[in-house]
């Protein structure tokens, strides 16, 4: 069972973190969104942890003790975990790296710094990258992060170590891409819940052990699509295989700002409503796997370029809306999707703006979009169930059999 193997990996990581407290090995957390090169933390010898717990009300509500309710529940949950101090992944940190992405995430850095002092490194992420000074700025900040990690761990991060780390994480990305592409099949061999459990586990687990697990899962899938590339293949730029709508369950794409570790109710609710989520395009909480880092040349240059320019832009990047819409449309074609579920956290204002544009942008293609908002409270409630069922019915043209 995938969930058993994931649980075992996470238990093992928990033991690593606990041991680190005795051995002096450093633990470095970072916030999700895909702009912090985990390779650098890995190369320093520290344990990298992508802090991405969410989905449950307890931590988010704890955050309300110092943050107002208009801060998104995911950001509040991160602060809540800091305050609760009961999750070892959060309480064991020697350093937290906070990218300057959206205002909610930036505030986590401010608050963490205010309460925990100099345990925070703020990584400036330029919002555009078409001018030389922007890429240079990001590279300089990565250089500063490298120095900070070296000072923390006492380890010099060599080019060779960085290059090796890049290879480790490229392998991870390639495996996720291969697994993702199998879901183009008319009968996806992995459910969304299974895929996301693996993806979320990779945010905490040892990357080599995680990649081994992904490889084993891939090899063991009962049905692999013919066109799916082997795990070590370069990024896919291939035309999709013809889609075949053989089953009655409509195929849905999930998109939005955030799908946190543990925020699985929406995945279950869609499945229960009679649809298959076959691909996710989410900013925070899902490991990026569509791009690779160039393993040749200067590794710091490669990381700067790979993380700032080559990856899919998040919504906070200037001029990203149309690019993201086009990418979603590409996924819709490749994964034979008939509807889009926009899953948004309450008070995420700039994704809320985008939802308007996406809904209208998909309309000419005949792709309906449903927006669902969550504050981590009672997502399995009756109204949501009814809305999802109605959405599925519109996709299939009438009520479907249970």
């Amino acid at each position, binding site marked *: 069972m995938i969930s058993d193997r994931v649980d075992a990996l996470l238990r093992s990581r928990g033991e690593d973190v606990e041991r680190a407290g005795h051995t002096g090995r450093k633990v470095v957390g970072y916030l999700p969104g895909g702009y912090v090169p985990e390779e650098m933390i890995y190369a320093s010898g520290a344990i990298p942890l992508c802090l991405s717990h969410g989905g449950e009300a307890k931590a988010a509500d704890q955050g309300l003790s110092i943050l107002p309710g*208009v801060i998104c529940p995911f950001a509040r949950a991160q602060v809540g975990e800091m305050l609760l101090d009961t999750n070892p992944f959060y309480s064991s940190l020697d350093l937290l790296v906070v990218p300057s992405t*959206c205002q909610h995430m930036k*505030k986590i850095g401010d*608050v963490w*710094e205010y309460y925990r002092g100099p345990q925070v490194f703020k990584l400036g992420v330029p919002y555009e990258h078409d001018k030389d000074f922007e890429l240079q700025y990001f590279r300089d900040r990565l250089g500063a992060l490298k120095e900070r990690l070296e000072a923390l761990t006492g380890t010099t991060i060599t080019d060779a170590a960085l290059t090796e780390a890049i290879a480790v994480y490229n392998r991870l990305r390639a495996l996720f891409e291969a697994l993702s592409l199998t879901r183009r099949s008319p009968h996806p061999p992995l459910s969304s819940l299974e895929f996301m459990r693996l993806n979320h586990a990779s945010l905490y687990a040892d990357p080599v052990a995680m990649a081994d697990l992904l490889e084993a899962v891939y090899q063991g899938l009962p049905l692999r699509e013919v066109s799916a590339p082997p795990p070590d293949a370069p990024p896919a730029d291939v035309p999709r295989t013809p889609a075949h709508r053989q089953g009655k369950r409509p195929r849905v794409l999930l998109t939005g700002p955030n799908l946190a570790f543990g925020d699985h109710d929406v995945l279950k609710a869609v499945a229960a409503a009679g649809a298959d989520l076959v691909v996710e395009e989410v900013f925070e909480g899902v490991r990026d796997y569509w791009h690779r880092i160039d393993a040749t040349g200067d590794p710091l240059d490669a990381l700067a370029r790979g993380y700032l320019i080559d990856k899919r832009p998040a919504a906070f990047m*200037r001029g990203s*809306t149309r690019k993201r819409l086009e990418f979603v449309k590409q996924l819709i074609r490749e994964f034979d999707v008939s509807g889009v579920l926009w899953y948004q956290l309450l008070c995420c204002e700039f994704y809320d703006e985008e939802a*308007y*544009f996406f809904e209208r942008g998909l309309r000419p293609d005949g792709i309906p979009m449903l927006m669902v908002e969550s504050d981590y409270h009672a997502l399995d409630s009756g109204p949501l169930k009814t809305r999802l069922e109605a959405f599925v019915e519109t996709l299939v043209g009438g009520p479907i059999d249970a």
Partner: protein
Amino acid sequence: MLEFLEMCGFEEKERRTQQPRVQEVFDRLGLSDQDLERAKDRMTTFYDLDLLGVRKIMRILVKDLCNTVLMREDGRTRVVHSCMAPGMDILGSALMDNYDDAGWIDPNFTFMAILGGLFDKYVPILEAAERQWLKSGAVAHCGMVKSRVGLISLGLIPKPDLTITTGFACETSPKVNELLEEVYGIPACYVDACQDRELWEYPDSTRVISFAAKSMRAAVERIHEVTGCRITDDMLWKVLEERKAFEDAVGRLKTLVQMSDPIPFRSAHLTLLMALDLIPATADGFVELVDALDTLHEELLERTRQGIGATSKGAPRVLGMFPHHHADPRWEHVANQMGVAIVACDFEGAPQGGAAGDVRELGDPYWAIVQHLNGPFTQPLGGRLDIILNMCRNLRVDGVFCHYHPGCRYVVADVMIVREAILKELGIPVLMIEWENFDPRAYNHEQYETKLETFKSMMESSSPHLETLS
């Protein structure tokens, strides 16, 4: 109309010459005679029209409104629009001074002051935005970005050839301009900074300022591409020097207000000063601005000498967190009526580590323009808190009026922590009031009045300053 113009400080001859122009603008904005009567009532209710300086400020704002609406008809056919873009008014001044056929508009604050403050007709603009991608409800989109979308979608301002905004504080504003480009075909340009200052660096902001200066210089290239107008460093230095007199005049006035007891005019006027700050004035415009402010300064100085003010002497003094309300003067008016003296807001805090004196000291005009990033608004939490605590001490306030503006996540995220720190460090009460800084619909008189009564009694019972203030 003539009476309205007189109340706004237009002199007799100018009233006759300007009446058709103002009428044309009011017609376009849908302002009726009935609206005009309401505006006259509100002006006498909320503003000190016996002060010539106030009337001169009103005149400047009405003229800016007309210049904005009629910009293309006035021959300025290449139009740049900015909003939530501090410092960009300086680029606007340079453009307006050097190109007769190009114009710059930064309309929001003027429209809020006139359509909101005077006419109480601001809500339709917000509702127009809510019908598009800035829906109302729990998501709490900021009224400032709603204003931008509302004004453009209703056609109340000329459709610009380029919009500029910044991401100094939030991603909402750039996203709005991106969608304006997608929906209305208006090209968007962004000036940014990476807000990655760590508290240990405070007050040094060199890194963020350097980035912002480069970003603004790049934006000027974009303006050149779109409008064909090149803004040179020399043009900017000239504006910075002209503007220095204006900033000095504002500074003198604010200092007088902050140091006087009683406060010499009603606190609703503080919003008007903020509106003036963003007008992309020409050289002549700066002369008018300085004249209005100096006139007002002299009048307030005289009031101070005579002990005349908007509250009684010894009234509790309050610092506002987040600026005063931009579209609804009732908030400050009622506070004054209940004997609470609002003396400043935290956005007016002195920049930390910025350059003072000769504007050319910094060597690069863009560095000079983005010095506002040393100010309190965009500092990391710890830095902003330091500035607020120092302002409370220096202004000897008895309480803090924490305007809780949910639309601005960047600032509102700090409010509970700042409140705790003020209580702990200074022991003065902090009133948390949830409002929308740009939306008159947020006002609830009964609730507000009750909170103010409690707040005032807490200040009177706890203040160390009330007895010593002279």
